[in-house]
């Protein structure tokens, strides 16, 4: 039964990723697109963790942690660039 639920949650997160992609494509302003990319990072972390659950191996957490750090740093860097015109002053 757990496998069925994992596949159902896979479908839900894939649908969420598609909705984020739609917002990324039509987003009227620049902060909308940054927000959509940030949410896509978080949803891909969820996808990787679910894949690790399905495979039953705890090796995927390092990849998830790496993606979380990259997503946060890139979001803050792009926001900083839009705010001040420079990233590190």
């Amino acid at each position, binding site marked *: *039964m757990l496998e069925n639920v994992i596949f159902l949650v896979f479908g839900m997160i894939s649908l*969420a990723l598609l*909705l984020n992609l739609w917002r990324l494509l039509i987003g009227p302003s620049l902060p909308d697109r940054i927000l959509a990319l940030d949410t896509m990072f978080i949803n891909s972390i969820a996808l990787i963790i679910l894949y690790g659950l399905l495979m039953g191996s705890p090796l995927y957490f390092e990849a998830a942690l790496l993606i979380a750090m990259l997503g*946060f740093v890139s979001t803050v860097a792009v926001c900083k660039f839009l*705010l001040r015109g420079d990233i590190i002053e």
Partner: protein
Amino acid sequence: MHNWMEWAVAFFLFLGGSFVLIGSIGLSRMPDFFMRLHGPTKATTLGMGGILLGSIFYFSLQQSISVHELLITIFLLITAPISAHMLIKTALHHQLKAIDRTRGERELKQGQQEGSPNIKKAMPENKRSKGS
């Protein structure tokens, strides 16, 4: 693995997945940016907490106690408000339009009419004292 453990893991996974989906629906359906920010920062973070809790349960019951996922949970709970703060500062700086139903929209328009966006009131002088 007993039956109730499987039910508990499945419950947490389903809860997390539905919150992630609700957050993304909010991101794609809300009418303006200040409303759109609500979905990913609150619902998606809660959904990630649910999924990671399910993962902690699964691996703790199968092998020994595992707390790797707690690291990701704490990291996400710390960084989601920070990135939301940066995004809303960027939106105020770019003077994005808000529709009439958005709460706090009158203050936003007042701030934009004075010629200085609210961001300067929020951080008054430390901008210049740092030197660039």
